[in-house]
């Protein structure tokens, strides 16, 4: 099964990677709250928040441009709503929508790019997030790669036989899901055979320490400070 760049990023060893997932989760929550509730001078605040995130990517040794490109994946979805807002005579709201969705995606990318998923879900479990939901997220994450993997195999097989027509591709889509489903079933069987009981347990844990408190204070304080300054600035 292949893993994408984000998975590779999350295996780094930067100071940000070494912080406890709970501290990063807390900072993310504050960051998103600051962003979501911002009304006045949003472009200015967005600029400041973007700088904080870029600094975060630098500290984590993650290429900021690559991260910014990946975060743009969210734009086609929110772009649709932004266009509707614009056409209904509310261009400010349209810009807000684009800025907030893009920065939110970039923030989440920084979190998952510096925290392996099992660790992240472990910290969510600590704050009493429903276990069923966490299991679904974990499987969704794993099986997403599986579908991509199967698609790559099928594309290679089709290319070896001279490519694929549009009509054939639509049929292949159904085959892709059937194949992914059977492979997912086989993987689940292999997991059950090794005692999987619905809960993923992380192999590496970062216990919450004084450095994490300091980190959370700084990482949550920076967006708050940016918000206060941009609100105050006239």
């Amino acid at each position, binding site marked *: *099964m*292949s*893993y994408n760049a984000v*998975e590779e990023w999350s*295996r780094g060893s930067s100071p940000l990677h070494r912080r406890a997932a709970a501290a990063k989760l807390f900072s993310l929550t504050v960051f998103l709250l600051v962003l979501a509730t911002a009304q006045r001078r949003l472009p200015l605040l967005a600029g400041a928040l973007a700088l904080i995130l870029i600094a975060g990517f630098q500290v984590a040794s993650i290429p900021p441009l690559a991260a910014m490109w990946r975060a743009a994946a969210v734009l086609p979805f929110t772009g649709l709503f932004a266009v509707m807002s614009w056409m209904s005579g509310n261009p400010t709201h349209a810009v807000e929508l684009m800025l907030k969705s893009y920065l939110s995606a970039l923030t989440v990318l920084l979190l998952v790019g510096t925290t*392996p998923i*099992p660790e992240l879900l472990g910290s969510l479990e600590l704050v009493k997030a429903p276990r069923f939901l966490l299991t679904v997220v974990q499987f969704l994450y*794993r099986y997403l790669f599986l579908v991509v993997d199967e698609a790559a195999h099928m594309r290679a097989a089709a290319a070896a036989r001279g490519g694929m027509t549009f009509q054939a591709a639509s049929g292949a889509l159904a085959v892709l899901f059937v194949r992914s489903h059977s*492979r997912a079933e*086989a*993987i689940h*069987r*292999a*997991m*059950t*055979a*090794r*005692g*999987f*009981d619905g809960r993923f*347990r*992380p*192999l*590496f*844990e970062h216990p919450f320490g004084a450095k994490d408190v300091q980190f959370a204070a700084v990482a949550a304080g920076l967006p708050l400070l940016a918000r206060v300054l941009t609100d105050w600035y006239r």
Partner: protein
Amino acid sequence: MPAVVEVRGLRYRYPDGTEALKGIDFDLNEGESVALLGPNGSGKSTFALHLNGLLRGQGEVRVCGMDVTGASLRDVRRKVGLVFQDSDTQLFMPTVLEDVAFGLLNQGLSPEGARKTAQTALELVGMGRSSERGPHHLSAGEKKRVALAGILALEPDLLILDEPTTFLDPPGQRALADLLRNLPQAKILITHDMPFARAICSRAVFFHEGCVAAEGKLETVAARFGWDFSTH
């Protein structure tokens, strides 16, 4: 010698109506190695999945003195190590070490204990230096060894290997045979690779259309069904 596996009258029908097992009787003693032979679709893998409780049919299945039922599944799975034919389905964690430690963590070991045990198992199969690699970067032979390490780390009493030589080159097959020969556990080997079967097992059970068609000395059973030992 105490029995590791005792199966009586096992029947199983897949949800699509296919009758895969039609009353299987089977015994395996401690430390014994047996090859399950037979054509594709004869029920060998389906049978193996019953020994780990992954499939549940009608009949009696006892593993290490425990009835394979809902209540005992957790303990049964500690005793039975199942190495699947396609290593890709067995290696689902981001790194080799995490994959080998997966079962150990599920057994309740601390992360530190799981890391140590997983590393030891990786050394045993000659993959000690690959613990930080992603399974998707390994060759087919390496994947097979890591999948085996994931099972050996759990120290099962029974090893079931489904087509273990698939995708392995001849040196890889020899290395695997040497490794398996030196393991003390009882082994069930599902294979079409007769030289490999002979290197590990002295007894064979031949499956045909969901039934045990013959069992006995490996060479005798193989000769009866025209399965020879020449390499391909």
